[in-house]
Structure formats: C-alpha cells, structure tokens
C-alpha cells in the first residue's frame, strides 16, 4: 500500500512524507485499505467503520454544512463554536449578546431554541442507486433530456424513500459515475446548550483563521429534540430530547505527537479531479474576481454598521462568512501557484491520455474522444461566467432573492410535485419558509439596497447578448451608479416584502395572486422569472452534458489508477467520509517548524486585551497560576489547546470528531492550516494539516472557566 502514498506524492510533484495519507474515503472503502489503516495505528477492526448504524459511525451527524457527534444518550451534540454560531447570533441582541458572553444552560428548560432552519441529520441508510439513476440514459441523448432523466430518476428515488421526518438525497460520485441514496432522520428542533465566550470560541478571530499556531477553543454544544412520540418535529416547548442509538465515548487523556487519529465527517466539496483548464480559470479569474467582490461587500456592510450598530449584529454571520471566504480565496490562489497546480494537472492529463493511447482499442479511443469533448465544453462554459456571477450577486439582496423565490415557488406549485424544480418541491417548503422568516433578523433595508446596486453595476457592464431583456426593460437604460441607486430605491419603496407578515402572506398565496400583486419586487421577479428559468435550463443542459462526460473522465482515471493498483476516493460531495493519519507538526517553509500542539502559554503570549486577542482575564489568570485541574498533558507538562494532524479535510468537516485508535473522541476538527487551503484542488502530504481543538482544553474550559459540570457529568466524563 505504500505505493499509493508515493504515487500520490509524485503526481503532485512533492517529496513524499512517510506518514501522510491523502484521501476522503467512503466508509465502504475502508476494508479495502485495512492494512494501511493498521499501519497508521488503528486498533478497531476497519469493517466496524463500514456499518453506519453501529458505533462509532452511528453517533456522527450532519448539521447541513457542518458535522457533529452525539455525546450523551439525551441527544447532546458537540460541534464547533463556529457551527453553533448561527444559534448564538439568533439569540443575541445588542443588550444581551450571547456571542460575546457565551451561554450555558444549567437545565434543559434553560436551553434556547436555535434558528428555525437549524437541523441535525442522522444518517440511517446508504444504498447504491447507480443502476436506477442511469437506467434510462443513452449515449445519443440530448443533454437537457439527459439532465431531466437523471433529475427525475433522483426525485423518484427520493420520493419513494422519504417518509415523515426523514430526508433522502441522491449523492453523485465522480461527477455521475455512481450514485447513492442516503436516508437521514431530520431533526428540526435544535437548541443551544452551551458555548464558551467568543474570546475563547473565536480567539484569534479572522486574523488567525486558517493559521497555525492556533489557540481557538472552537466548540459548542447543542441538543436535538423530537416530539413526545419520538418523531421529528419543529420546535415545541413540550418536545423531548432525542435518544440516539450511539454516543461517542470521550477520551479525556487526549492524544500525543505521532498517535493515530481519524476524522469522520461530511466534507462538502473538493476539486481533486477537475481539469487543468478549470484550475487555470480559478487562478486567473474566479478567485481574483471573488476577492474583489467580497471585499467590496464587506466595505458596504462595514460602512452601514459604523452608522448603525444594529446592522453589525444582523450581518454578523454574513460578515464572518465573507471574511472566511476572502481569506480562503487568497490562500487558494497562493497555494495553487505554489503547487504549480495547472502544470501538475496538465501533466496528469497528458499522462492519462498517453496511457489511453497506449492501451488502444475502441473503448479507450472513445474515452479519449469524450475527454477531448469535455475540455471543449469547459472552455465554452467560461464565456458566461461573469453573467452567472452577477446573478448570484443579485441574490445577495434579500428582498430581491425573496421576491424571486416566492414567484418561482408559486409557479412550481402549479406542477405535480415530481416535476417541480429541485429545491422547490413540497419537501423544501419548510426550509424556504424558515429562510423567509429568519430574514427579519438578518435584513437591513439600506444595506440590502446597496448590495443590489452593487450587483447591478456589474450587470450593466455585460455584453448585450448576455443581458436579460426583462431586467433591461426595468432598468430603462440606466447605467450610472446614481441612476441605478434611484431605480433600486423606488423598487424598495414599492415593495412590502421587508415585512415578515407580508412575506408569509405571499408564501401562502397562489401563482395567480402573486402574478396579480402590485408589489414592485414581485412584479420585477415575475417579469424576470421566465428568463431566469431559461438560464436555469441552459445550466441544466450543461449539467446534462457534464453528467455524461465527467464520468467518462473518471472512468479513464479509475482504470488508469487501477492499473497501478491504486484505490481512488471520490471528490467530496457532502457524504460521510473518513480520513486518517497521525498527530504531527509541519515545516511550512524553509527554516520554519511548527510543533503539533499549541499550549495555553501561547494564549497569554497572543493576548492583547483587544478583540480578537482578548482572552478572558479568568483564563489568563488560571494559565499563569497553572490551575489545570489535572487536564494538562503529562507528556507536554502543560495544557494543550489545539493540535495538527495530516488529515485530508475540507469545508463541511467543521465540527467533525477526531477519534483515536479506539474510536474515542480526542478533539474536534475546525480548520486547516494556510497551506491546506488549496488542498481542495491538490492535496500536498508534506504541507496539508487539519487543525483540531484538543479535548483536554475543551474539558478544562468547561470545568474550570465555565463551570459546565452538568454537561461533563452528562457525557460521563469523570470529575477531576
């Protein structure tokens, strides 16, 4: 199995490190790499990891964007502070700022309901459905028909699967090479139990984001509630805690340098098998453009926040997200350049092509031809990238997005459920309603208008053939900022969608009523919808084409790797994955070595008293007094805070439990180091590291600083 390591490293053009393992493995793949797992130190039988309803997999859940674990039979869930951040923000006001102060419920009754769109998804079943999805596809099919056939097959599968309180989704692997149907219990009543103050949970803030050394206590606790009869239900006072089948055991001793560690979670998306041309477009256009847009958006919010502090509270989540991505994009650019990603991918494509040619035969020639077509199509799609971006930007205006969503929903509702556009089916209505409702806590009319003006300024610079006639008709030829601003102001003045009751009224209204509405935003949205649908169709056509071509590329790739006896893991797609490796530091550049653990002494070093380096005084006092209450590492002689491991993770893995060789929780993954930011495209075993908050620090903060002993007891952690 050593060949995998070597070859992965060679492919990326790096010197191999003996202990790094690339790969976000599907649980089912683990028995196939059992020897490697053992070699790295796993003590469990790998086959126990393939049963998603057994320990430990059965205790690991998705929050939809983050990962979490059940840690008590009473439905207590541990995840990152930044994953529970929305619940903190939802319950905060300028007068009672839970983000700042932290929060602890001493009893179940004190727990606070999270925002209405918070979810805990418990995976109960996974089934391969490739045959069902591809049954009606044929080679000569029109791309849009292909897309629709796949879409219909997926929806049918989902519909047949879903029962009350369950959510099913078809996950696409290798761009359409295989499909899986995943069934999850959808828990809708999620409450905030405990979060340390921001000065611990977000210590270092955006300055330290993506950085090592790190000193963040990025953890918080939620609780899953169900109805009295044990079913999934929206928040209700008399709901009861959910009783999970499995609960992750805690190892309060933690891990040390070199120890085996694995992370189980729901990584969102990677681009490991994207083509060189796609990497190049990202480097030359996507990231630089996004960086400018995100910065401008932050500037707009900051300017309004300066005048009105309430804006800052409303947009706190948005700002945190924008900052996060802004830094991420910078890191992607730097990493892609440093790794010479385009050249590496070009070489890989050339090697694959050469191998196919060498193999010969009609099948391989057909693969060659399809890969060539794939490259042509990718180049073609890039011609409308600016327009596609502008439409996304327009949706940053909550009022505009709500209008478009309401119109679209009302029209989709006139169709049979199965024919509705994905995202607008019956099953999605609760989510749409939640989003429309929570807008009231995240909406400032002035900021919202400015975001729309910003998007329109880019839109009016598009070439004529990419513009939307209905949008141009509304704009009436305005092109300078002042005129656009006036147009948007009039648009907002003529709309009542800023009012929650009004939005809820339209949510319930039918298509005819909405079409007859004189609300200016609904009118604009109504006029635009046919054109937006047309763009959606174009998009679907592309996806139909891609659904045919990408699997062909992957088919060739898998065959090629197979000829070298190498397993291929699929790109991340928000399905459950396992990554394993060892606790270890990193030498990020010549002359610099990072240790695998940070210690509380580093908190004192970084502490300036000014956000984001404003550790609570009680904490720095306790550190100076070495009041570690038995939680310190004996080996290190002090209390560790965060640790590094050579694990392959990405966005979506946040909150994932880090498990030791016996499957016990020793930390929570919450970030990657700067060098791993571009890991979405290329994994570099020498430089990529995941960052985990250490269980010993979590327990110490809970016990010594926040007195959350009720939770320690609930988790069965022995009192110190």
């Amino acid at each position, binding site marked *: 199995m050593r060949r995998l390591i070597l070859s992965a490293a060679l492919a990326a053009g790096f010197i191999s490190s003996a202990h790094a393992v690339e790969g976000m493995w599907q649980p089912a793949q683990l028995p196939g790499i059992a020897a490697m797992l053992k070699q790295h130190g796993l003590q469990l039988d790998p086959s126990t990891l393939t049963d998603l309803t057994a320990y430990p997999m059965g205790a690991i859940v998705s929050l939809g964007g983050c990962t979490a674990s059940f840690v008590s039979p009473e439905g207590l869930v541990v995840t990152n502070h930044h994953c529970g951040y929305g619940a903190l923000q939802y319950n905060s006001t300028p007068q009672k700022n839970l983000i700042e102060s932290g929060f602890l419920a001493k009893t179940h009754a004190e727990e606070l309901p999270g925002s209405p769109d918070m979810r805990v998804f418990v995976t109960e079943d996974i089934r391969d459905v490739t045959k069902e999805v591809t049954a009606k596809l044929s080679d000569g099919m029109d791309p849009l028909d292909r897309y629709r056939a796949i879409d219909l097959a997926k929806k049918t599968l989902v519909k047949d699967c879903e029962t009350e309180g369950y959510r099913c989704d078809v996950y696409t692997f290798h761009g359409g090479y295989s499909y899986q149907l995943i069934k999850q219990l959808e828990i809708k009543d999620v409450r905030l139990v405990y979060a340390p103050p921001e000065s611990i949970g977000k210590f270092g803030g955006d300055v330290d984001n993506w950085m090592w*050394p790190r000193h963040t206590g990025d953890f918080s606790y939620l609780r899953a509630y169900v109805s009295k009869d044990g079913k999934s239900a929206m928040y209700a006072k008399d709901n009861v805690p959910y009783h999970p089948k499995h609960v992750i055991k805690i190892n309060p001793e933690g891990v040390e340098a070199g120890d085996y560690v694995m992370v189980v979670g729901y990584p969102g998306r990677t681009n490991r098998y994207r083509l060189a041309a796609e990497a190049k477009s990202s480097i030359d256009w996507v990231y630089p453009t996004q960086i400018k847009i995100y910065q401008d958006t932050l500037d707009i919010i900051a300017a309004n926040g300066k005048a009105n502090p309430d804006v800052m509270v409303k947009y706190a989540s948005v700002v945190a997200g924008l900052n996060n991505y802004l830094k991420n994009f910078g890191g992607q650019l730097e990493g892609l350049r440093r790794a010479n990603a385009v050249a590496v991918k070009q070489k890989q494509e050339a090697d694959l092509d050469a191998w196919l040619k060498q193999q010969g035969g009609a099948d391989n020639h057909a693969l060659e031809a399809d890969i060539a077509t794939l490259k042509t199509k990718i180049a073609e799609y890039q011609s409308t990238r600016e327009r596609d971006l502008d439409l996304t930007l327009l949706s940053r205006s909550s009022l505009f997005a709500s209008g478009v969503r309401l119109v679209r929903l009302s029209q989709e509702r006139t169709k049979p459920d199965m024919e509705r556009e994905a995202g607008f089916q019956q099953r999605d209505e609760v989510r749409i309603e939640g989003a429309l409702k929570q807008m009231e806590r995240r909406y400032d009319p002035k900021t919202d208008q400015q975001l729309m003006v910003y998007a329109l300024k880019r839109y009016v610079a598009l070439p004529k053939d990419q513009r939307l006639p209905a949008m141009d008709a509304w704009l009436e030829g305005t092109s300078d900022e002042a005129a656009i601003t006036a147009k948007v102001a009039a648009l907002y003045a003529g709309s009542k969608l800023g009012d929650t009751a009004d939005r809820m009224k339209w949510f319930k209204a039918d298509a005819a009523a909405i079409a007859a509405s004189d609300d200016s935003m609904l009118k604009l949205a109504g006029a635009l919808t046919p054109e937006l649908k047309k763009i959606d169709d174009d998009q679907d056509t592309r996806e139909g084409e891609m659904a045919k071509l990408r699997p062909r590329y992957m088919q060739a790739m898998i065959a090629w790797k197979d000829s070298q006896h190498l397993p291929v893991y699929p790109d991340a797609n928000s399905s459950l994955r396992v990554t394993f490796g060892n606790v270890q530091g990193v030498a990020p*550049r*010549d*002359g*610099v*070595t*990072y*240790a695998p*653990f940070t210690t509380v002494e580093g908190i004192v070093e*970084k502490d300036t008293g000014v956000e984001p380096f404003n550790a609570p005084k009680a904490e720095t006092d306790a550190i100076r007094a070495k009041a570690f209450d038995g939680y310190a590492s004996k080996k290190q002689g002090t209390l560790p805070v965060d640790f590094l491991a050579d694990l392959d993770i990405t966005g979506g893995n946040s909150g994932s439990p880090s498990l030791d060789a016996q499957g016990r929780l020793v930390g929570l993954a919450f970030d990657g180091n700067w060098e791993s930011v571009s890991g979405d495209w290329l994994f570099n075993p020498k430089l990529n590291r995941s960052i985990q908050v250490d269980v010993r620090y979590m327990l110490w903060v809970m016990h010594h600083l926040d007195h959350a002993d009720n939770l320690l007891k609930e988790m069965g952690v022995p009192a110190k």
Partner: protein
Amino acid sequence: MRISTVVLGAAMALAVDAKADEGMWMPSQLPKIDKALREAGFKGNPADLADLAKAPLNAVVKVGGATGAFVSSDGLVLTNHHVAFGVIQYNSKPDRDLIANGFVAPDRAGELPANPDYRLRVTVGFDQVTDRVLGPARGKTGRAYYDAVDAASKALVAECEKEAGIRCSVANMFYGRDFYLVKQLELRDIRLVYAPPRAIGNYGDEIDNFVWPRHAGDFTVLRAYVGPDGKPADYSPQNKPYNPPSHLTIARGGVAEGDFVMLAGYPGTTYRHRTAAEFADQVQWRLPVTVGVLKQLQGVIEDAGKADRDAGIRYASQLQSLKNNMKRFSGELEGLGRSDAVTVRAEDEKAMLAWLAKQKDGKHLRSDIDAAAKQIAASNDVRERDLLLGMIGTQTQLMRGALNIERLAIERRKADADRETGFQQRDEELLESQLKQVQRRYDVHVEKSLLTALLARYQKLPDAQRLPEFDKAFGRTPAELASSLDRIYGATKLGDEAERLRQFKASPDELATSVDALLAVARDLQPALLRIDDQRKSREGELLRLRPAYMQALIAYREEQGRAVYPDANSTLRVSYGKVTPLVARDAVTYSPVTTVAGIVEKNTGKEPFDAPKPLLAAIKKGDFGDYADAKLKTMPVDFLSNLDTTGGNSGSPVLNAKGELVGLNFDSNWEAVSASWMYDPRYKRAIHVDMRYMRWLMDKVYPSPKLLEELGLK
C-alpha cells in the same frame, strides 16, 4: 548577565540559557574573560585578540559607516551588499546596470572606482587618554565641564590628525569614565571587485527586513588601493593595491547548530547600562508618545496625499521614513514589554544600590549617583516640549530651513573653531544642499498641517514647559495658531529656491534686515532655542561628570559577582561571541538556524523583491552544490542565525569560527531583537549572517570568478 536572566526566567516562567552570550567586548577585555571564551568553544588564545591594532583584529575595518574585513594580502575587503550599495549604484548606468546584473571584475584593471567620498578606515592606534580629557574638566560642573571635555577632545583630535591620511576621534567609554583616542588610517581609493545581482544581495528587501528565515546573499567584495608611495591617495590609475597588516582566512568548512562563533565589528549605540529611570522613561513615555506623534503626522500626510496627489508624491519619502520609525519603535516597545525590561532593570539597580550601601566608598558614589538621577529627572520635566521642538526641526522643510539660516547667521559671527558643531564652515555645503532638496519635498498646505499638529500639542503643555518666544510667535489658542501660520506662510518668499539660496548666502548683517515673515519668526525664536541648547549642554556636562560614579558602582558590583562589564556600544571595535542558535519565536513555532536554497525557490514570485535571477534558479535546480552543500541538510545553505550580540553598525562584521576562520558575514537582526539596544534577552536576541559557503558557491558555480577564489585562497 546571570542576574538579569534569573530574574527574567522567574518573571516569564520560561527556561533560559544560563550561559547567555550577551556582551560587546572591547578587545582589551578579552583576556579577562578568557575562561568564559574557552568554555564557549573558542580554540585560539584570547590574549591574541587583545590589541585591536594588531592581527587579526586590525583586519577588521570600518567601511562606509559599517564594518568590513580584509580577506587577502592585496587589500580585498569583504562587506555587505547593502554597505557597498552606494558603490554599485555609482557605477551603474542605464546600459550597464550593475544593481540588476551584479558585477564580476574581469581583472584588476577592470575593478571600478567607488564614489569619491567612500572611505575605508584601518585602526592603527587605540590609546587611553582619560587623564588628558578629564584633567582640564576636573573641579568644573555643568556647561563648563562639558566645554572642557569638548575642547580637550578637539585638541587631541587636531594634534593626532596632523599626520597625513590619518583620521582621529575620541571615544567615550562607560559614559564619561574612560576616554580613548582612536587613530585610523583612511583609505580613499576603494574599488568594486565582485557584487551579486540585487535580487541575490538584497533578496526579499523591505519585506524580509528584520525577518528570519532569510535568504539574502548580502555580500560584496571591494579592494583598497593606495598611492605608488604606499600612502592613502585619491583614485588614480597609477595607484596599487593596499597591503593590509593582516587579513582573515575564509573557512573551507561550514557551521552547524551549536557551533561556536564570534564576531568583530563596529556596533553603533546601545543603552544597556542606562539607569532604571531611563528604562522606565523609554518604555512608559518616550516610545509610546513618539509613536503617537508620528502616527498623527502620518495621518496628516496621508490625508493631504488623498486630497492632492502631487502633495502625496512630495511627501512620499518622509511618509516612508515615518512608517519605518513607527514600526521600529513599536517593535522596540513590544520587545521591551516581552522582556519585562523596566522591572528587570529596576530590580538589578535596586540590588546594586543595596550592595553599594554596604561598601566603604559607597556613600561618595551614591551622592553622585543621586545627583545624576536628579539631572535625568529634571530633563523629564521638559521632555514633552523637547520632543515636539525636536520634531519641528526634523519633520518640516521651510521652517527647518529658516531656522538653520538664522542659526547660521549667529554662528557665522564667530571664529570657525568656536562655531557650534553642524554650523562650521565644513558643514555649510550640507546645509545648502538641504535647502535645495526642499524644492521637491515641500508643500505649503502639508507643512502648515504638520506644524499645526506639533504646535497644537505644544499649546496644551503646562506653563512651566512653554517658551515665551514660541507663545508670542504662534499664540496660545488653536485659532491664534491658525492665523499666525496663515500670516507667516502668506508672507514668505522662501518657497522659492533662488530666494532661499540668496538668504543663505547673505551676510549676517544683510539677513538681520530681512522682512520675510518666516525668517523673522525664525529669528525671534533663536533666543529660546539657544537657551534650550545651553540647558541641554549643562545637563549633558553634569551627566558626563556624574554618570561615571554609576558605572563604577555597576562594574564593582558585577565584579563582586565574578562578572565583567562591557561598555555600551559607541562605534568602536568590539567582539561578541556565542553560537549558532535556533529561535523559538512563539508558542509552537521554531525557526531553524540555517536556511537553504529551497527557501529561495519557495519565496520566489518572479516579482521584486522575490525575483531570484535565472542563473541562480537554474543552478539550484541543477543541484550542483559540490563540497559547498551542508553535510547534514544535504543541500546548499544560504544564511544562518546566531545568538551573537549585535546592533546597528555591525553590518558587514566578519563572523568567525572557533579557529578564527571566516564562516559568515553579519547583516541583520531578527524582528524579536529590535529592542536589544536596551536589553539583551537570550530567548529572542539573534543575529543573521550570510553563510560563506553560499558566497563561495556563487563565486564558483553561478557567477564564476576563478581569479577571485584563487586570491581568497579557495581554489
């Protein structure tokens, strides 16, 4: 420094190296610390290093304001690229860009003469003259003491410089306790022999400045020439290479972590033996207040630049320098805080005074020490005012020019020898060129804004700090200040260069009749400025008289503990020793002590300052490092880090191994050590050196000069 490290260790709760390698030793002190030197790993005889006018230390020379060393019997001198940068620039033309391309002299005839004012000084004498300097001053106090020391020093220098080609100076050791007459042979024909391209010599430039890990090949080779008679001479094709009394040998091996290293050079200024009160003043008042004022001035210039692009350009270099100073001062403040310098120094001083109280002559010293403390405290009474007035003299253009013109008029009425330093005949050329550069660096609106910022602060000072002349000129309220500045700048013609130079050349009598508003104000302010000058000199005279008591107590106290005391740096030749040392910069971050060429490739963006030349990148890729590669790292080393005690002025200092062979060339410090001019913290003080293996490899494989290698004894 055992005491300070123990206290430090306790305060910071971190382990420290008990054998902290602090110290910038006078060569004559080395036999005294013989044991410590040998224990540290020195293989030679410390007694051989005792005389800086003899081999091998007389191979260490002062060049272009920094340090260099003779490395061949035909006068080859090795120094930093940044020290010789002026020479490289002077010889560059659009069609022969030596900065970009570097330079390899084809033969001796092809060596290029330096700019005519470039000098190299070889120390030939270093004699104690304490009695001759202090004799005339004894029994005097204050200003008279200052003047007596000044006059005696000037006389010694004049007598010494009678010999042709010799430059002399009087060095003050231990703040007035000892004086030495330094006699140096001054060579005036210096030529460029070998320089790497800028993208090697200054790889990383400002971004990497003060930063480790570093990857600059900061070295250049020059050659000193003398006249056919062997005497110093201006450049002439007939000149011949100078044969130095000794030269250093470049090592064939390299260095590794833990190896003994020592360094000889001319460190500029340190404040290690300043009193606890001065430490407190620096940390608690001077650094934060200075940063505050500089930040305000930065804001003024930036705002003006936004409104008026032309003004932005005119003040670009002043803005850059404000930012640099702010960064430096902030770093110093941060470092002194990290080292808890104020407490450490205060406790050390307290222990010294307690010890002193038990000594026989303790009372006598104590009374001088207390008197010195009073002088220091008194200067604190007017420190706000002095800081602000000082900045008027450095941060304005037209105002500074007018003040200088008026001061010069006063000095011109005196005999040249009696004139104030800086206003003698030899200084007039510099003053005139300052008035000329104003043309490109002045904008009336910005200057008024800068003065408003400074004088508004002045107006808020308590009465005791204010000067009637200033109050009269600028009023007591912001409104009066605004109207007086409008009036003054509205009625001055000094903005015109011809007018400025005409007034500069005018006789004192002519000038006295000038009605120019700015000159009139500058004239009215002179009595106040002269008074302040006088007060400052009285204070300095008193401190010159009293501080030796403090130093004497400190030296005796340290000796009691079995430790020697080195004098604070004062641009005289010093020796430091230590070892190649990694740096634990902060929690979980360790810097290894040797960087490699891999780092050059990593940092390279292709854009200045990370634009390594193609031949270098190709050579790294080729990996033909031969014997130059580090045995352990298995690749080519570039720079290395040591815990040697250095400060500004140590640039170009040769770094020697235990056998006295040249293994590196000092060129910078790490950011964490910016505060080391006040306190040596063994945890953070590091010096950065270019590895001689890298230099030899470049000379052999990348920009080859076989003849040079042969002359250096490396072929």
